[in-house]
């Protein structure tokens, strides 16, 4: 079809879209420019934002699903997904914990989650139970005092359009990859953080404490900008298992660190992994990238990945500023039929840039897991330095652990090291523990936690404690 005709067609659908669906709260399944216009309108976005989304959508149409990952899943029908639904009304939610799946509650118990938080996590109508509103208000005041902007991305688009316009898509462009393009077209929620020059964010920011966090949506978009000499630590997700009707999650996270800025981004991901056969689990296809734009800036990713049926995620750092630093610490645990293809990219562009990658993978049951990473040293990255260590632990003989580390080195002064090992839990280690009266399951947990120690110690305190408990829960039933 000629491009002109195409253009006309596109234009026509577009106008129709504007009239019809505005009043409704959900859109029927399916994706076209109509849907995108609807979402944009619903969010009260300015014209440029809609254009930006449509641009992404048009690029998405020309792209194909990536097939290089070591993953196996049936093709996704993108027309069967509903791309916008208004938050659930209070009366639709479970009215008390009694109505919640007892299995879920059991897990909360094991993780030691406080009672009032359990209700919130399980999606119970919380207005009377949870005092998060007051907590949040105090936080908001404190942040405002420091000049830190922390709000939902929709609010940011309305309230701080200049900032958003300047940085949105500057790290992960709309057409970056299939899932990023889809996200750019249809994202409905996410967070925006701006830390002004010289400000050290007075507290750790967490989506958990954001008022609308209860409804994070399946296409999240997060943008964090740290101005010169500013600092922030951001926590995403939480350790409690979260249930969600949406199977496909395609989030995009962009981090921008200007001169001497420091961003620490920690994730604990524990989406529903599906039943024993892996049915119904979440597909977690995430694009996360940080841009160390300024000299001496630093971006550190820490992740604990235990959930989802499929994880496809490569938090990366573009080390552009002179002497900038990138870090990646990861623990990925898969059990049952879970599949994870995860890793990082460290792109050394500036002089004296340094990066560290520590990845620990634990595969149990019938799961499959891959570390996939890239360390690239450009010709101008004099004295660049990278150290990579990725270890895999196999529990049981039906699982798989794979390593695909790419190194592209174009500078003779660069020093790049990569090490990887794959092994199982030593019989002698187990025997040693058991001979001292520790049960097999506890012994395995102990050994696994020791294996992950290098990563856990990078986590903020509150996460670290929970992460250990979480690991034990995930590996339940893997031994014996």
């Amino acid at each position, binding site marked *: 079809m000629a491009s002109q005709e195409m253009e006309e067609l596109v234009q026509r659908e577009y106008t129709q879209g504007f009239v019809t669906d505005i009043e409704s709260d959900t859109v029927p399944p399916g994706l076209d420019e109509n849907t995108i216009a609807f979402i944009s309108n619903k969010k009260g976005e300015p014209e440029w934002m809609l254009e930006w989304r449509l641009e992404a959508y048009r690029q998405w149409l020309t792209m194909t699903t990536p097939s290089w990952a*070591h993953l196996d899943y049936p093709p996704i029908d993108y027309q069967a997904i509903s791309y916008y639904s208004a938050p659930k009304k209070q009366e639709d939610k479970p009215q008390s914990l009694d109505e919640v799946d007892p299995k879920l509650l059991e897990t909360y118990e094991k993780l030691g989650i406080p009672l009032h938080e359990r209700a919130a996590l399980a999606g119970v109508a919380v207005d009377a139970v949870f005092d998060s509103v007051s907590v949040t208000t105090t936080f908001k005041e404190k942040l405002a005092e420091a000049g830190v902007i922390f709000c939902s991305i929709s609010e940011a688009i309305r309230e701080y359009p200049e900032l958003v316009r300047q940085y949105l898509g500057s790290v992960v462009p709309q057409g970056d990859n299939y899932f990023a393009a889809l996200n750019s077209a249809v994202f409905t929620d996410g967070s925006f953080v701006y830390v002004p020059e010289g400000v050290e964010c007075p507290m750790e920011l967490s989506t958990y404490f954001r008022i609308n966090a209860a409804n994070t949506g399946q296409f999240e978009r997060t943008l964090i900008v740290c101005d010169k000499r500013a600092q922030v630590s951001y926590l995403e997700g939480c350790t409690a298992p979260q249930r969600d009707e949406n199977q496909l999650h395609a989030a995009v996270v962009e981090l921008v660190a200007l001169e001497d800025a420091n961003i620490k981004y920690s994730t604990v991901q524990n989406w529903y992994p599906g039943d024993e056969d892996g049915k119904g689990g979440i597909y977690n296809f995430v694009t996360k990238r940080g841009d160390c734009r300024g000299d001496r800036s630093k971006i550190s990713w820490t992740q604990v990945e235990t959930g989802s049926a499929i994880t496809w995620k490569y938090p990366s750092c573009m080390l552009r500023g002179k002497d900038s630093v990138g870090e990646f610490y990861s623990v990925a645990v898969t059990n049952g039929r879970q599949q994870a293809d995860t890793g990082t990219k460290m792109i050394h562009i500036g002089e004296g840039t340094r990066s560290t990658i520590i990845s620990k993978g634990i595969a149990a049951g019938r799961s499959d897991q891959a570390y996939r990473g890239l360390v690239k040293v450009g010709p101008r990255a004099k004295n660049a330095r990278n150290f990579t260590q990725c270890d895999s632990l196999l529990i049981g003989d039906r699982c798989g652990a794979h*390593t695909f*580390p790419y*190194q592209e080195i174009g500078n003779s002064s660069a020093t790049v090291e*990569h090490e990887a090992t794959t*092994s199982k839990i030593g019989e002698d280690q187990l025997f040693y523990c058991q001979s001292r009266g520790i049960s097999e399951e506890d012994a395995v947990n102990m050994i696994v936690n020791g294996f992950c120690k290098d990563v856990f110690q990078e986590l903020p305190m509150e996460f670290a404690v929970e992460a250990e408990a979480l690991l034990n829960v995930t590996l339940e039933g893997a031994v014996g």
Partner: protein
Amino acid sequence: MSAAHAFLQRLGERADDEPTWVAARRQAGAARFEALGFPTKRDEAWKYTDVRRIAEGEFTLADDAELDEARFAALGMPLDAHRLVFVDGVFSADLSDLTDLPDGVSVEPLTTAMRTNHEAIGGAIGRLAGVDFSPFTALNVALSEEGAVVRIGQGVVVEKPIYVVFASRANESARMSHPRVLVMAGARSQSTVIEHYAGEAGAANFTNVVSEVMLERGAIVDHYKLQEASSEDLHVASIHVEQGRDSRFTSFNLNLGGALVRTDLVTDLNAQGAETNYNGLFFVQGRQHVDNHTLVNHNAPNTFSNENYKGILNDRARGVFNGKVIVKRDSQQIEAYQNNANLLLSDRAEIDTKPELEIYADDVKCSHGATTGQLDEEAVFALRTRGIDEQMARGLLTLAFAGEVMDQVRLPVITERVERAVAGKLPERFNLADLVEVSDALEEA
């Protein structure tokens, strides 16, 4: 007309007096190659290697093996060996020496072997490297004419190495050859096979070789591939190894020459106790491009693999290393080690390395490592405090870096030749005689 199609035009040029099943296989190779076409950078296995120079080149098949003794002497190694020589892919009886082959050993050119017993040879050829492995193996199947066939009987220990030379001449127009190498090592036999690719200065030919090595129970094979093509030569090779119970295969893949060089090395460890060792060294300079892809398939429990590849890169040269180890489900009690170290001597050289592990069994000990860097300044300093000047110190350390692989070589002629070549290629171009003196002095001290 596509590049692939242009290559296959040569098919029509050949005389056809071969058995019908051979002709049929040739057609299958041609069809597969035409369907696949030349690989592009979009193919993961060819991500870093651009073969347009081959696809766009114009090559003809050679029809003579003329090369006088003097010219050959300049290319070959002075080895006491059973020698088989090919010139631009054509067998040269004059340059070959197969006089005192022990009983139970046969070394012959492919055409001869096929004439005498095409069923026995033809069945083995292509068993490990079919048309699906890569477009280049398909092309080889379509166009291959000649090659080396080595058969070693049960329990035979071949004292002298079997030395196969592929000489590439400086021709007026570029030639191509698609040789096959077949090594069938009988049970408990022991042998050393050398594939030597040597080119005259100014040669600009395209070699596309496929080798298959089959080791029966308890066989031991040392396999050397010494590639010293000219700086204009294009070289694509794949080596496919199949190992039976308790067999041991040791590969030395030594790459010094060539403009564009790609080697695939694949081993299938099919029975308990099989062991494979990969040793690799490449030294590239100018605008040379060397790509090594290795794969070990642990298809059976209690198998062992060890790999050590080293690269030295200067000027604007580019090196690629992709090493993969696959441990199949239920292949327990595996040990697999893999190491790749690279030394960059210039800011414009580039190395792309990817050591991969794919593991489906839990009772395994697998590790891999990859490093890229420069000479250790402290080591340079240590040598200088002993009165060795800086250039010499760097040269010595570079040689020592290569030495970790060369120390495994059991043929002194090859060790010396490679060390000499490495020393001669060092940026400082210091005198090797001096170097050896210093090195001896150090050893004594």
